[in-house]
């Protein structure tokens, strides 16, 4: 034991010494905004490691996924040194290709676990291995139009529960004759609202051990029931991703609920609405209940085939593991850091001009600690496909109760995945 400790400390010392003289090239595959954000952290990284050349390659989201898959299937051929991966899609990689990525614990990741909220690690760890480091996250908030709320006589501070939200929506309908809705929900195209609300209520398709289908549990029943209530009260409209953007651009939606990365979507799509928007916490399912949830987010992994693992990990530690790196990305592209210490950065406490000088990042990041953990598992896409259909059928009135709808969903997910339904 003592000997092991000695060798371990020797290793640590030698790796600490090696850190200063790291060299070589680190190639990174990423996409769009995320690639730009990573690029913005390179100058800061090079101050610490001047001999490491970082090359960020923007392949586009789908390409990164496809080529990563092909690379892993080919035993790691042609993989970069750092690989961007979406949390929701991550587990397929760990399940199908457990040897394709480095267990970051072997590089020292176990020492930085507590610097991130626990829920960010759930999809990135499998069989005790830590395959990727948390990057941005998607804490859910409600974005709203200050002017429209005001005209309808709604005070966003009074909206604390979903019932309050529905009551406000009725005011909105009365004021604008139904031409302005409180929000736009994807129905039949996606189940984002279900996932956000289910996560808020501590429920998801699967349990966190990925061993049971839990979609018929009470938290999920509440979530689906709330969506039906919103539809029945006629306070929301239907629209997919593009439809949601067109409605807020046209002023037909008074609010939008999404992961905080939607901040950039609103800001860049409706620059003329500057100063009209604000942010408040998602309404709770019961008075005093949790008002936090997560939708989306990405991570960085190091392929086993990388020849420059130490330098790659050093980059991860700078870009994702330091407040400096994370805040640089927040400033440049609005990527919401999941690093807890970044939440204490002075920039987060500043008012943002687009949001009428509201300190939106403080509000958004403040919810991070309250997000219940949930796991996509390698069956995420199967489950999602089932839920999209069941939600649409339930809204249409095919099932009598939300419980009945979700029992059916659980049955279908179980038959597609082979996982048992939780009692």
């Amino acid at each position: 034991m003592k000997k092991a400790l000695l060798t371990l400390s020797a290793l640590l010392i030698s790796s600490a010494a090696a850190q200063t003289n790291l060299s070589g090239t680190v190639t990174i595959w990423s996409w769009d905004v995320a690639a730009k954000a990573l690029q913005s952290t390179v100058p800061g990284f090079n101050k610490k490691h001047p001999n490491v050349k970082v090359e960020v390659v923007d392949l586009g989201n789908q390409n990164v996924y496809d080529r990563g898959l092909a690379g892993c299937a080919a035993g790691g051929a042609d993989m970069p040194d750092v690989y961007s991966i979406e949390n929701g899609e991550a587990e397929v990689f760990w399940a199908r290709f457990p040897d394709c990525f480095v267990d970051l614990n072997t590089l020292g990741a176990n020492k930085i676990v507590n610097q991130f909220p626990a829920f960010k690690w759930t999809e990135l760890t499998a069989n005790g291995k830590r395959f990727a480091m948390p990057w941005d996250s998607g804490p859910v908030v409600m974005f709203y139009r200050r002017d429209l709320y005001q005209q309808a006589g709604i005070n966003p501070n009074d909206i604390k529960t979903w019932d309050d939200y529905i009551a406000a929506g009725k005011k909105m309908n009365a004021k604008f004759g139904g031409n302005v809705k409180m929000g736009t929900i994807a129905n039949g195209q996606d189940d984002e609202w279900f996932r956000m609300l289910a996560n808020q209520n501590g429920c998801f398709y699967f349990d966190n051990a990925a061993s049971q289908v839990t979609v018929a549990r009470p938290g999920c029943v509440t979530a689906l029931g709330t969506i039906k209530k919103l539809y029945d009260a006629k306070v929301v409209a239907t629209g997919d991703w593009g439809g949601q953007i067109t409605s807020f651009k046209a002023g037909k939606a008074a609010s939008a609920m999404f992961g905080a990365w939607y901040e950039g979507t609103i800001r860049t799509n409706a620059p003329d609405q500057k100063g009209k928007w604000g942010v408040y916490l998602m309404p709770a399912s019961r008075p005093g209940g949790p008002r936090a949830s997560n939708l989306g987010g990405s991570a960085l992994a190091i392929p086993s085939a990388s020849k420059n693992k130490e330098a790659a990990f050093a980059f991860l530690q700078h870009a994702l593991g330091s407040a400096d790196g994370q805040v640089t990305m927040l400033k440049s592209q609005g990527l919401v850091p999941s690093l807890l210490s970044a939440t204490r950065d002075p920039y987060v406490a500043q008012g943002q001009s687009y949001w009428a000088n509201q300190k939106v990042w403080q509000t958004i990041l403040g919810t991070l600690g309250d997000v219940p953990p949930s796991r996509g598992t390698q069956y995420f896409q199967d489950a999602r496909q089932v839920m999209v259909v069941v939600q649409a059928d339930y809204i249409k009135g095919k099932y009598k109760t939300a419980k009945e709808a979700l029992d059916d969903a659980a049955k279908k997910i179980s038959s597609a995945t082979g996982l048992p339904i939780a009692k």
Partner: protein
Amino acid sequence: MTTTARSTTSPPVATPPRRKRPPLAPYLFILPYLLIFATFWAWPIVSSFLMSFKDSRLGAAAPYGLSNWSRLVQDEFFRTALRNTLVILVIQVPLMLSLATVLAVALNSKLLKAAGLFRFAFFAPLVVGTVAYSAVFRLLFNTDFGIVNRALTGLGLPAVDWLNQSGPAMSVLILAMTWRWTGYNAIILLAGLQGISEDVYEAAAIDGATPAQQFWKITLPLLRPTLLFCLVLSVIGTLQLFTEPALITNSGPGNSTMTLGTYLYQQGFRSFNFGYASAIAYTVAAIAAIFSVLQLRLFGREQ
């Protein structure tokens, strides 16, 4: 020349010919092709068949209890995809081929000025990139901002939530595919029409056949082989239908416009369940083969 010479000079009683080894050279020349064919064509076909018996998701979590084939039999989503595909097949293909026939006859008319321009115009949709045309259709049928609903409300008709309701979403798909493929089939049929001899029509005209009679009694029967060709191609194409439902309706709302093609993609490349995707692919291929044989039997006789 040499062969005739040899046959005349060869002795009447042949000595038993020395069995010559088949020359090796030609096979060596086609060997690279054969290797490529075996590696990139034959082997994947065999391999995906083998794969359809395996659970390719086996790994960390619980395995799927049943084989892919028994799942296929019970799978509600597969039935939905099959049903949707057949609905499109039954509505869209006859609609498109009748339109294409009428169009081909019109394009073949001697009364038509600037025929080349029209032929190009109707063929043009095929040149447009699928992604671009899908995006345009999405815009046209947007509920709040699309020109179709603008036109409807302008005429005093109610707006339709095209892409968020199953029936309307399906009709948008059928419309889009008809727009894209009618001209293509019309051009093939036009080639068929031009293969029909003028003499037949002249003779018919002398016998006093009306243009309508000429169309039903001469044009259609003589066009049958070409129509059959278009039909078989369209049926196979529809069974593999992927682009339009994937890009215009995203298989939705719900799964109401999901086709065999999009379900296969979803299982193979979203869920990474290649075993199950292979089983679906083989089923699609089998259905396509059955349909083709049926059509050849039903419409291909008495030529």
